[in-house]
């Protein structure tokens, strides 16, 4: 079996617990995933399971050939996860029922090849990108409100140090949130509800795995 699945971020809402508390949740559709390929120590040098998610008919012939033992027309996203526990077969379907209510999970966005990470912010200034304070708003300031300020000294050292924080592209990177509580699992719809937010836009492809750092009680 596996400890991780690919899924899609659906959006956020809130649900009530038995105690009557309103819990903010992110809804994730985590399946069906299909086993696309099994990598073995002998052939590939390591053990892993390649999962496929999101049915698609628009595949190239090589892609079709790769997925010929999978019982659907095609799969849009492929991603490798470590193999754990009992063995799986190619074409086997996996769903939300590998997760249980009350468990903790890690959610990663931007891990699957060809999918987006966190929301892209474009070319962002230092105030937004690095949390600089900017300049004073008043006292005769002009054009300095969001300026980065000095980026170094004069002829000693005579250059700008490497790694100086400056304006540039922000967002659309891989990001992982650790230890989110699984509030509910709806196996018939392949949906899980995790407590709190998950980075990235709605519809983004995420990888959900059982929490690696969850403390054993």
């Amino acid at each position, binding site marked *: 079996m596996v400890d991780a699945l690919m899924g*899609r971020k*659906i*959006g956020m*809402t*809130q*649900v*009530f617990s*038995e105690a*009557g508390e*309103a819990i903010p949740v992110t*809804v994730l*559709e985590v399946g069906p995933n299909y086993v696309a390929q099994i990598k073995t120590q002998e052939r590939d040098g390591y053990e892993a399971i390649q999962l496929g998610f999101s049915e698609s008919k628009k595949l190239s012939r090589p892609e079709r050939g790769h997925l010929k033992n999978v019982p659907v027309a095609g799969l849009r996203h492929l991603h490798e996860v470590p193999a754990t526990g009992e063995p799986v077969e190619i074409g086997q379907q996996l769903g939300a029922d590998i997760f249980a209510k009350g468990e903790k999970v890690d959610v990663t966005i931007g891990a699957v090849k060809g999918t987006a990470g966190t929301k892209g912010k474009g070319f962002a200034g230092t105030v937004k990108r690095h949390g600089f304070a900017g300049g004073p708003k008043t006292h005769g300031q002009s054009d300095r409100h969001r300026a980065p300020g000095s980026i170094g000294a004069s002829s000693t050292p005579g250059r700008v140090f490497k790694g100086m924080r400056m304006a540039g592209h922000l967002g659309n990177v891989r990001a992982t949130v650790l230890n989110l509580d699984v509030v509910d699992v*709806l196996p018939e*719809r392949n*949906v899980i*509800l995790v407590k709190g937010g998950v980075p990235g836009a*709605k*519809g983004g492809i995420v990888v959900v795995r059982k929490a690696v750092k969850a403390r054993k009680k």
Partner: protein
Amino acid sequence: MGMILESIRQQQLKEDVPDIFPGDTVRVHVRVVEGNRERIQVFEGTVIKITKSGPDRNFTVRRVTHNVGVERTFLINSPRVEKIDVVRRGDVRRARLFYLRDRVGKSARIKEKRV
């Protein structure tokens, strides 16, 4: 995609929620947990606003006790709200009755709605 989210939201809703409107006088029966005992507390007052929809839908009730205005906001669909009784329907012209906060005595009254 939107359908999955909407169906989860629908499941959170209660079935027997009475229609309440701003200006109504209501009695809200709230479950209060004290230590390990649970009891029902009643809060009576005027509905001054209703916001949002679906499971987040909430309303604020204002009452004046001992010359102090008290406002409590409840999630309509929360399991902690046991029951809502409408005592009286009010006839008001706006959705947010914040003007009541600045008024005391006779001018803070609300006309009863004639059906």
